[in-house]
């Protein structure tokens, strides 16, 4: 289903019974709603599950230019407005995780529980430089040249070596990401900071991260700063922790949501 909001069409999908509490899932860079298949299947019995493709991804429009997190937040809010969702739980991974915490900071009244997965919630001068390099690569060499370097970075060495079928699913999502969308969102990732104001968040927050994912130490620090937050590391998981360890991921999510 496409929703026109914030000046673009956003592709989304709803599973689960009407009237159940809403939970929204927001995808990472170069993936799509399909990354959440296991979560939607596990939660749709008890929750109204809304998944959407971030701007520039999946079936959503991919305007040219550099996007900002302000735009990504506005997309999510516009989607809630269009679907008449007053309040929702919000979960996101990596770029989606930064979206989740950004929404909690900027629009606290619209959300209940926040799940931040595999995101340090801020850029650094070094990561910004790396994003600029990747933007240049996407522009001049295309998405394909980014696929394997990125996949090999996202997954722990033993997982990458075993090459389970879900890696091909991620490769397919990556390859189908429009160059405009990759560049636009990479520019947003090169310039964001929701970590500095983390203590302003009053929602219950779950920081959920793969044990072997790069942002794990930074996320543990965010958890230490934020009273009442919960921190869960998924053993053996890498950056796309929900696909690496779906059972454990879903358990952490359902435990956290049930705690409210």
């Amino acid at each position, binding site marked *: 289903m496409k929703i026109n909001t914030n000046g673009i069409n956003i592709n989304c999908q709803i599973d689960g019974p009407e009237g159940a509490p809403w939970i929204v899932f927001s995808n990472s860079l170069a993936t799509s709603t399909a990354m959440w298949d296991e979560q939607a299947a596990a939660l749709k019995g008890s929750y109204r599950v809304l998944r959407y493709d971030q701007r520039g991804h999946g079936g959503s429009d991919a305007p040219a230019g550099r996007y900002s997190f302000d735009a990504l937040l506005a997309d999510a809010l516009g989607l809630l407005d269009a679907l008449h969702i007053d309040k929702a739980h919000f979960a996101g991974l990596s770029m989606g995780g930064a979206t989740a915490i950004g929404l909690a900071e900027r629009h606290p009244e619209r959300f209940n529980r926040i799940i931040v997965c595999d995101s340090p919630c801020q850029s650094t001068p070094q990561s910004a430089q790396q994003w600029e390099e990747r933007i240049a690569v996407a522009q001049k060499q295309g998405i394909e040249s980014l696929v394997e370097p990125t996949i090999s970075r996202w997954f722990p060495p033993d997982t990458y070596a075993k090459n389970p079928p879900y890696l091909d699913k991620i490769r397919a999502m990556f390859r189908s990401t429009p160059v405009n969308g990759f560049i636009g969102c990479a520019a947003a990732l090169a310039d964001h900071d929701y970590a500095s104001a983390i203590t302003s968040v009053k929602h219950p927050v779950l920081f959920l991260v793969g044990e072997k*994912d790069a942002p794990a130490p930074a996320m543990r620090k965010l958890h230490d700063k934020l009273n009442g937050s919960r921190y869960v590391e998924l053993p053996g998981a890498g950056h796309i922790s929900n696909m690496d360890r779906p059972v454990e991921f879903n358990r952490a999510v359902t435990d956290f949501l049930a705690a409210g």
Partner: protein
Amino acid sequence: MPFMDANGVSLHYDLAGARGPSVVLMHELGGTLHSWDAVAPRLAGRHRVLRYDQRGAGLSEKVRTEFTNDILVADFEALATQLNLAPPYSFVTVAAAATQALRFLEKHPDQVGALVLCNPAPGVDPSRAAALDERAAFAAREGMRASLPTTLSISYPPSLGDRAAYEAYLGRYLANDPVCFGFGFRALARTNMLHLLPQIRCPAMVVAGRHDTVRPHAGTAELAKKIPGARFELIEAGHFMPTQGPEPLVALLEDFLPK
């Protein structure tokens, strides 16, 4: 090739060329001084050319104490001093070795003649340290062969360049001490010299491999813009260009290095 005790470890090195400006060839993570076999002899006519196995690599000493980028730089300083290799030094580095040349430049700005950074990895975002540590732990635990799918299989497609050169490279790669190989990753994970790029005042050339699958060339071109006045060149090679594309690299070096 000879050995020398320097900075507390035994370093295996080769110093070729009787006269001319000093050139230092620094090999990549997982490589050895033999990574330069097709390059060093070609430069030795007009330069003094030092290449050596980094601490923990090749036939240099296999340590069990973790090392840092600063320790690797100190290895070079000790080796060059003991060999009476005179500054200024022109460094030619591959990938992660760029961090050593840049650190040396930061410490001794007046002792660097020129920089040639091949597919440079000038440092790592601190948030990625854990991922590189994981690679290090994996290598130490499972060995070099098990590490191939996440390392050499990506960085060195066998079809790239000379097949015999690939076979020899693979053999040397598998001969790495996996613990020291891991130390190299851990040192890289804790190093970032990105801040130095805008401050570079010596002649600098950044060389990218058209077939580099680890650091795609357009990203390297973007990085090169950070260095004031840097020359950028794109050649027919992959990530390990001294082995994969020695001819075009040598041509560039002959043109660029101080005469």
